[in-house]
Every structure is written in structure tokens, then in C-alpha cells.
């Protein structure tokens, strides 16, 4: 019961920021008569609401993981990375930041669920966007690691506290954890990513840098031939 209440509190806390931002954007739209400003605010409103909806959607998916409703299949990792990069590109742009992708992999297919993998990488990217310093470029790298493919997202923000880094790398992230060096973070995105990675038998981890953090997910390579 206590952990359920904690989970609800964390989700409520995480949704408070986009909701109050959406309210401010809407109120400012009402106050301004300049149509260019109205269009820009409207665009931002749509983007913030979509991001919040995706997070709510992810939370409902966690509850459905036990039912095994998410089929594992050969998935093009590059395709998913490119879709995520396209979807978060405008969000990075609002913040005067950028996201680059670098492919170092020969293998193209992994065994995963495309919806869940999308969410894992999306969470890494929005995290990088939020905590990176202005005018920096976060880097998404896709590389081969023996029989796995690693998707790594490097950000340039505060580094991850050792305790969370240890829990994450040992697979012990059992509930959302407030990340003290990353203000406003409840760790919900990381928790969602760890739950989805666990379902897909993927490995989730982080690398601490002095000027930021890399979050990665390693997925088993699919034996199916890739035709593209």
C-alpha cells in the first residue's frame, strides 16, 4: 500500500510541471494579441501536452506488462532511434539544444517490442534535453556489443549520484528515486525505462561523466536476416 501511494505521489509530482507549464502557455496565449506569439505558444502547448500524455501512457503500460501483451519481435533499432530523434527534435530546438545520432553498428535488428523500445529511448532523450546545458548537443550512439546492440544517449548536465548509478547498473531500481543532483526529477522516466528494459530482457545502465551522464540500453541481436 505504501509503495502504491509513493508511486501515485511520484506520478503526480512528475505531471505537475507540464500541467503548470501548459496552464501558463494557455494564459499567455489569451493575453497576447500578436499572432506569431500565439502560434509559437500554441505549438509549445501541443508539444508539452504530447510529452505529458506519452508519460501517462507509459505508466499505464507498466501496469499491463504482467499480462504479457507486448509481443517481442525483430525490430530495426535504427528505425526506432530515427523516429525518436524526429519526435524530440523540436523539443530540443525550443531549448536551444540539439541531438545528434551516430551509428557504429553492423547488426540492424534486435529482439524487442517496438513500442517499449521507443519509450525507453524517448525517456533517455527527454532526460538529456531537460538536464543538458544550453547550446550543447546530446549524442545518441548505436553500437555493436558482441551479441547485443547498445543504444547510448550522452547528456551534458549534472552527473548521476553514485547510489542511483549503482542501483541502475545492478538492476536494483525498484521504484522511482528522486535524483538530488537533477532538480525537479523524480526519476520516473528512468524507472519506466528500467521496467520496459526488464520486460524485453535488455540491460539498462548508466555511465557517469564529470560533465554529464550516459544512459544506455543493450538489446539482444535478432538472428533474422535484415532485408533493408
Amino acid at each position, binding site marked *: 500500500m505504501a509503495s502504491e501511494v509513493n508511486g501515485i505521489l511520484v506520478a503526480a509530482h512528475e505531471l*505537475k510541471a507540464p500541467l503548470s507549464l501548459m496552464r501558463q502557455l494557455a494564459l499567455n496565449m489569451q493575453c497576447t494579441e500578436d499572432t506569431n506569439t500565439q502560434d509559437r*505558444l500554441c505549438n509549445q502547448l501541443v508539444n508539452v501536452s504530447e510529452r505529458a500524455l506519452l508519460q501517462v501512457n507509459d505508466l499505464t503500460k507498466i501496469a499491463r506488462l504482467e499480462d504479457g501483451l507486448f509481443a517481442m519481435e525483430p525490430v530495426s533499432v535504427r528505425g526506432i532511434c530515427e523516429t525518436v530523434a524526429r519526435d524530440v527534435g523540436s523539443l530540443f530546438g525550443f531549448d536551444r539544444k540539439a541531438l545528434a545520432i551516430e551509428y557504429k553498428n553492423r547488426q540492424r535488428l534486435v529482439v524487442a517490442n517496438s513500442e517499449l523500445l521507443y519509450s525507453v529511448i524517448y525517456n533517455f532523450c527527454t532526460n538529456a534535453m531537460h538536464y543538458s546545458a544550453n547550446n550543447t548537443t546530446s549524442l545518441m550512439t548505436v553500437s555493436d556489443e558482441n551479441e547485443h546492440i547498445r543504444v547510448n544517449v550522452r547528456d551534458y548536465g549534472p552527473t548521476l549520484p553514485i547510489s542511483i548509478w549503482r542501483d541502475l547498473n545492478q538492476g536494483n531500481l525498484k521504484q522511482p528515486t528522486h535524483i538530488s543532483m537533477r*532538480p525537479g526529477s523524480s526519476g520516473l522516466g528512468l524507472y519506466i525505462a528500467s521496467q520496459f528494459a526488464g520486460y524485453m530482457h535488455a540491460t539498462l545502465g548508466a555511465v557517469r561523466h564529470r560533465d554529464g551522464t550516459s544512459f544506455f540500453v543493450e538489446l539482444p541481436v535478432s538472428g533474422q536476416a535484415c532485408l533493408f
Partner: protein
Amino acid sequence: MVKVFIIEDDVMMAECLELATLNGLRQLQSSYPDKLATDNYTTYTISKFTNIFDATQAINQSLPDLIILDILLSGPDGFSLLNELMTYNDTAAIPIIVVSSLDLNQQNLAHYGVVRVFRKEIMTPLQLSSAVQEILANA
């Protein structure tokens, strides 16, 4: 020329604060033209910062007339700036509006030069623009 600094790490929220501040300054300009009109061209500037380091650097170069400050920032938080500002004679006199998602009491922060506290969840742009107008009119 009146200078307002906005310190907020969320770029979209910073733009919302900027728009409200701009409205406040325009109202001030029409109500008290002598407060702003030091030349015929520029009467006010609004500068936005996403972290304490950049803001501190700018404050050292030129003192603002008003600071609008978020508390939960990436890196050092808003309290560290409040502590820094109160230790110098010139910066201690700068009025500060705190805009935060934290439940803060203005009276508890008054000794830092905080003259208003707004909660992001319930604040309206009109409240902020009125506060900007009122504080700068009485400065």
C-alpha cells in the same frame, strides 16, 4: 533604462515569464513614462538565464533593477543566488520575485530581498505583470 533578469531553466516557462514581464513594463511605461524614458529608443531590457553561473556573471557586470527567480534549477539552486546577493550592499538592494513550484513563504524570504513569491501552479500572467509594474514604480 530598466533592466529585468529572469532566471529559469525551463525555456518555455522563461518565455511565459518574459511575456508577462513585458506586459508589466509596457503598462509601467504608459503609466509612469518618466520611470523608463531615459532616451528615445530603449527604455527597458529583459535578459533570460537558465543557470546561476551565467546570471551571477551578468549581475557582476551590470546590476538589474529586478530579478525574477526560479528556485529549483539545474546546478546550484535559487537559494544559493539569494545567499550570494544578500552579502553585498549593492546586490542586497535588488528586489526579487520568486516564481517556483515550491510552497514558499514570502515573509521567510524577505531578508533576502524577496518582495513577492508566486506559485507556478496558480500564478497568472496578470499577477506577475502587475507585480513587476508595482515594484518598479515604487523603486
